[in-house]
């Protein structure tokens, strides 16, 4: 239901309330891996309380851009990043930035489910415990709340102490979403979160994402244009490491204004 409403692109920006947290902006973002520049000076704004879809052909730099936002390239040898990334007013790459806290504020969901080799309960509660958000006594209650929110509670309530690997791929991805939500992020980064899932799980996750827009800034990388049309408020098109178009989703899917993004949408590129 929620997803189809989003597909019409009728959700106005006023839905971005005070509780939605800050948006993110990038200015002239360049990312190099050794001698190869992957992103050539990207400037874009990811408005708070809205869902922005990053689309573009394989290898265009969508995922690289996404991973720049929570400094996930930090440990990679040969990675060089220049330009500005901001979370609200704060400079993400400032030397004084607390990366630990930054990554708590910016949650992430990956291409494939990657639950921890821990019990289902620990998967949800560990990070929240480490960040000092939940006390030990709160764990059972708050674990249940988060699992209910992603609609996984009834499936796992009897096996909270067992491994998550017996769950289906869709359930595992929901568990990873619960894990991300447990630390109360302000931004949620989604890297093709449904690409390895069945259609049922996909629409379940899309519904959840659509509902999350009320509380946080959501940025989703997707190969699936239908998915972008269903969930996104805003669309960014990347081609070969450059941003060629950023537009409201409704307008974009009526007809991209940029010739190159039109070529991509019509299947003439990638």
């Amino acid at each position, binding site marked *: 239901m929620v997803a189809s409403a989003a597909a019409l692109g009728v959700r106005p920006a006023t839905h971005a309330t005070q509780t939605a947290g800050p948006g993110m902006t990038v200015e002239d973002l360049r990312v190099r891996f050794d001698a190869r520049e992957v992103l050539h000076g990207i400037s874009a704004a990811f408005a708070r309380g809205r869902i922005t879809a990053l689309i573009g052909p394989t290898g265009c730099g969508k995922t690289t851009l996404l991973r720049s936002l929570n400094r*996930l390239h930090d440990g990679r040898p040969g990675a060089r990043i220049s330009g500005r990334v901001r979370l609200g007013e704060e400079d993400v790459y400032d030397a004084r930035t607390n990366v630990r806290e930054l*990554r708590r504020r910016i949650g*992430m969901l990956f291409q494939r489910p*990657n639950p*921890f080799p*821990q*019990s289902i309960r*620990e998967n949800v509660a560990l990070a929240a415990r*480490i960040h000092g958000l939940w006390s030990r006594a709160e764990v059972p209650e708050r674990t249940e709340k988060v699992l209910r929110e992603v609609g996984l509670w009834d499936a796992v309530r009897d096996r909270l102490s067992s491994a998550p690997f017996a769950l289906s791929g869709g359930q595992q991805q929901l568990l990873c979403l619960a894990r991300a939500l447990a630390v109360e992020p302000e931004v949620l980064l989604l890297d093709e979160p449904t690409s390895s899932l069945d259609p049922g799980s996909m629409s379940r996750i899309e519904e959840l994402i659509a509902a999350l827009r009320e509380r946080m800034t959501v940025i989703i990388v997707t190969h699936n244009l239908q998915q972008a049309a269903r969930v996104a408020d805003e669309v960014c098109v990347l081609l070969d490491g450059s941003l060629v178009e950023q537009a409201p989703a409704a307008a974009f899917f009526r007809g991209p204004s940029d010739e190159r993004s039109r070529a991509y949408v019509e299947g003439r590129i990638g």
Partner: protein
Amino acid sequence: MRLRLRQRSSTGLGADDDLSRTDRVVRALLLLTALIPVLALLFLAAEMVNSAVPALVYAGGDLFTQQLFTFGNLYATAETVSHGIHAPLGAAYGALPFIVGTLLSSAIALAIAVPISVGAVLALVERVPRRFQPALSVFLELLAGIPSVAYGFWGILYFGPALAQHLYPALSRLGVVLPFMRGPVGAGEGLLTAAVILAVMIIPIIAATTRELVRTVPVLAKEGAVALGMTPYETARTVTLPFIRNGILAASVLGWARALGETMAVLMISGDLLNALPANIYSPFSTIAATIVDLLDSALTDPTGMAVHALAAIGLILLAITLATNLAGRVIIRRVTTGVLPVGRGI
């Protein structure tokens, strides 16, 4: 033609009239080389059992329960007879101190080596910049190549006395809570020194295996933890270690098997205590392997031959312990590779 060959080969060597003479010779040689390891183990085990039998009969259960191990009076004309077997006067073959010494020293070595190996590997793989990793790995491998007699020499001349002087007095204060840590600490020849040296000797084995395991942990799994703001330490505890836990167990068993059989270094630093169990963790002791080397010379002078039988008997015990450990390791490794999914218990 192919079918005929296959039928022939399933019947083994024989009248392969369409194979050339060279082919047949090569096949026979290959089969022989394939059989050598099997034959060697069977022959060794059979020979050990065969030479051990008289001592096993003579000592009976005393072998595993008694502490007195003596070849008896090799010059006396009188003999001691037990279970119908004649041995020099007063001969007794109680191997309990050697069994305990072997198991204890290797177990303490393992307790020291496993955390160090795992910690070193996590530091090496996760923290050290990639270009320095090969150089540091080489050191790990060099450590494995040092002859055990060199370890023994270093242990008895420098390392043991240094530990006894600087570390053991402090450790002995733990004796308040742990009785076996209580002094006297001795001069540095004994159980703990030997265990420390053994630990240094098995660290390369455990670390090399663990390093390969750590590299098999999926990056995506670790990134899940990193993206939640976890530190490298928390990531290791939450993701990496649970993934490789069974593998570390298997690597430890391999290291343990090595420590069980290590002879020369232990012989040099054990303090060579016979006929008594170690009184505390610093006490002199002896292992099965060290005792065999130590006593073989005098055993050969026993006119009844029983002393050699006795050494064969304790050697058989060592063989049994080592084979059992290796088999256990194999079972664990098989369990790991058939994909029993790992689950940790959180932080």
